[in-house]
């Protein structure tokens, strides 16, 4: 019997050996397809070696290659062809997550893995929920506007242009008029039809007198090139097998390869090398069981808020004993997640929330309210309609309601009538929330990260306010048997914040390290604050801006 299982799973898995070799890379749009890919010798100093190919690194690799730079981008994960590699199955698709061990502690230890960490070419966008939102302009200046957090060194008006670029690059499907924030161009593709779960969010908002909107999503509502329109299969959060989802894997990465970038899959970076002059000289990485070294004129670390500080800390040497880019002592510090609590209930009608993208409707009301008699906290939040698959839903029932035994089995039978509203809430930067190195090592022989996290009192007040609001809205929509999920968090940010002052930040507005001038950081780590929206669009917008700035600096001879 075990023989048959081996037979079933053995066929040349993309997670077993690298696919992007021999002058070609997988074409993620075609079964068995390949596309020609330029390759660079390791002894040749490429313009940019980029560690990570997600929303930050993948986008930057594309833009830099299109600007004419030579680029090699590394990812520890496999290079998937979703059409042939992805199943409609929660357990199988854990293969797209970063499931290597990480130690979590603090008063509110984070859930990692499938909750927030991808290990694939395309990074976490392979499994993200496609929610594509712009920051509220004031969030780039929370300290000067609201008196909390810290200001970004970026101007929202400039970011607005880069949001336009990202929304076009991903053909975001959204409403003609978005009801919150400054005017923006109409979304490139029409909004998706609402499923019943989203209609519940709308009903609640209309009953309570708040606004709602179809959620802008990075999955196409009409054909686009080789992407078919979304067929509403509802497995977005574990990897789209039809390529309707506009992940980095199927958008920026093929563009990057066509522009001359090389992608190295299954390549785990272990150390960034620096010379006596204090400049980065390249990246040590493990591929095919061998430690190798790629020379580079510039190194970009884009591993997201855990792997980025981990690599910088692992790269400590005599000249930089506390890790690279760390003269401020802030590498690994100010880790921020977002509050992801929810309120759940049961409708009389059949809802069948497994159909369609899980979050088809949004209510950003409280992202745009600064003063209110009930508002006893700083910061903002929004909520989205929900559609968890069975394992994910069981985890809510067991985690929040502590159900097991017959009680669990019976409650789960209400699955097709369940509805929910789930928040994305701003958490405050705190230095005590941080990534450090544990003593244990992983399969690469590298020390694993320890992630320490505790909510602030403000975080707790914001969460309680949001739970109260979501409960009222859900009740107003007609839901019964309402209960609260008090413990969840999601996206990651911080650990290498950008700023104007080398003493209080790790990189400048261009994502360039203050200490090692040819070292750059380009992912969610650079966020000084997080706002109340999902971060992927902002990460991509910052990457687009960074590429343009690098082009300008290069022309001026300032790289």
């Amino acid at each position, binding site marked *: 019997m075990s023989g048959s299982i081996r037979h079933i799973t053995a066929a040349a898995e993309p997670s077993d050996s690298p696919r992007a070799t021999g002058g070609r890379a997988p074409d993620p749009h075609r079964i068995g397809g390949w596309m020609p890919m330029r390759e660079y010798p390791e002894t040749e100093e490429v313009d940019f070696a980029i560690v990570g190919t997600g929303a930050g690194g993948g986008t930057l690799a594309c833009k830099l290659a299109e600007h004419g730079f030579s680029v090699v981008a590394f990812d520890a994960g496999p290079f998937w062809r979703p059409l042939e590699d992805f199943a*409609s*199955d929660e357990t199988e698709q854990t293969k797209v997550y970063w499931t290597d061990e990480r130690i979590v502690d603090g008063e509110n*230890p984070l859930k990692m893995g499938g909750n927030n960490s991808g290990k694939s070419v395309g990074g976490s966008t392979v499994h993200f929920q496609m929610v594509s939102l712009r920051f509220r302009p004031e969030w780039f200046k929370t300290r000067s506007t609201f008196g909390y957090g810290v200001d970004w060194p970026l101007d929202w008006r400039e970011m607005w242009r880069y949001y336009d670029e990202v929304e076009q690059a991903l053909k975001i499907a959204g409403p003609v008029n978005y009801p919150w924030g400054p005017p923006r161009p109409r979304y490139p593709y029409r909004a998706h039809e609402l499923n019943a779960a989203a209609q519940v969010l709308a009903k609640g908002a209309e009953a309570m007198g708040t606004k709602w909107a179809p959620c802008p999503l990075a999955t196409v509502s009409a054909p686009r090139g080789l992407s078919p329109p979304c067929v509403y299969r509802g497995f977005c959060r574990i990897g789209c097998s039809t390529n309707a989802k506009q992940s980095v894997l199927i958008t920026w990465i093929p563009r990057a390869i066509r522009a001359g970038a090389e992608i190295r899959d299954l390549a785990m970076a272990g150390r960034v090398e620096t010379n006596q002059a204090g400049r980065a000289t390249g990246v040590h990485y493990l591929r095919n069981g061998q430690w190798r070294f790629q020379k580079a004129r510039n190194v970009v670390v884009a591993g997201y808020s855990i792997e980025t500080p981990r690599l910088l800390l692992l790269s400590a040497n005599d000249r930089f004993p506390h890790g690279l880019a760390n003269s401020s002592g802030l590498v690994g510090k100010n880790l921020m997640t977002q509050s992801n609590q929810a309120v759940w209930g049961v409708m009389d009608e059949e809802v069948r929330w497994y159909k369609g993208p899980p979050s088809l409707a949004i209510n950003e009301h409280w992202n745009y309210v600064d003063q209110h008699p009930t508002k006893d906290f700083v910061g903002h939040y929004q909520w989205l309609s929900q559609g968890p698959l069975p394992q994910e839903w069981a985890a809510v029932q067991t985690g929040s309601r502590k159900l097991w035994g017959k009680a669990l089995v019976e409650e789960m039978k209400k699955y097709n009538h369940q509805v929910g509203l789930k928040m994305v809430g701003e958490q405050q930067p705190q230095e005590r929330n941080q990534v450090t190195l544990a003593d244990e090592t992983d399969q690469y022989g590298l020390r694993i990260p320890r992630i320490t996290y505790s909510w602030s009192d403000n975080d707790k007040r914001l969460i309680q306010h949001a739970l109260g609001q979501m409960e009222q809205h859900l009740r107003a929509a007609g839901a019964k048997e309402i209960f609260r999920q008090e413990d969840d968090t999601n996206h990651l940010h911080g650990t290498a914040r950008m700023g104007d002052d080398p003493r209080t930040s790790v990189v400048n507005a261009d994502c360039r390290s203050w200490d090692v001038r040819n070292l750059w950081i380009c992912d969610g780590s650079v966020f000084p604050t997080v706002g109340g929206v999902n971060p992927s669009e902002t990460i991509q917008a910052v990457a687009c801006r960074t590429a343009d700035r690098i082009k300008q600096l290069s022309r001026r001879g300032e790289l």
Partner: protein
Amino acid sequence: MTNDRYPGYDVLDKRNTPSWNEQTRRVVDARLAIPREPRFFSESEWQTLSAVCDRIIPQPKDRAPVPLPAYVDAKLLANRGDGFRNAKLPPQREAWKRGLAALDRDARRIGGARFHELDVARQDALLKEMERGELSGPAWGNMPSKLFFSQRVIPDITSSYYAHPTAWSEIGYGGPAAPRGYVRMGFDRRDPWEAVEAKPGQEGAARRENRRVG
């Protein structure tokens, strides 16, 4: 098969429809073919684990049980991680081995027998003590029983159950859905390839309709 809410619905009837692509069939076929004997655990640990699984997810006697111990065993055999571990817990293999041994120790203490030999009321009482973190002692070492329960026992067993087509059918879930997906998205709308929920007094009609789901 007992299925009171969705009588006659079996998600496996859709296996050869456009809702299941080849890679999904491969994955689910392998899951259904899992060996039913221990490969990671010892025979003795397997007995304890099986009894724990029976209490966390009690299954009806009139259908083939979802072989939950086999899935937990397979996860540990492959050492397939979750991507994080509470600092107070040892790695998952050690946590499970220590937790099952400690549970047996505590069963002897309160009932004079191993866990799987206790009656279900005593088994549940012990599991509730574990859930509240009230089990401790040399056999537990520095592993908090409460964390072992909430972060190993519950997720590893319940996620195994809800990964199985039998559980999908039980809750009326549509199951795999590529490439066909769904068309009817609104309230009280179902595609012909979705389960029919039995309304009171109409179980027979639902059963007939569920035989045609595909």
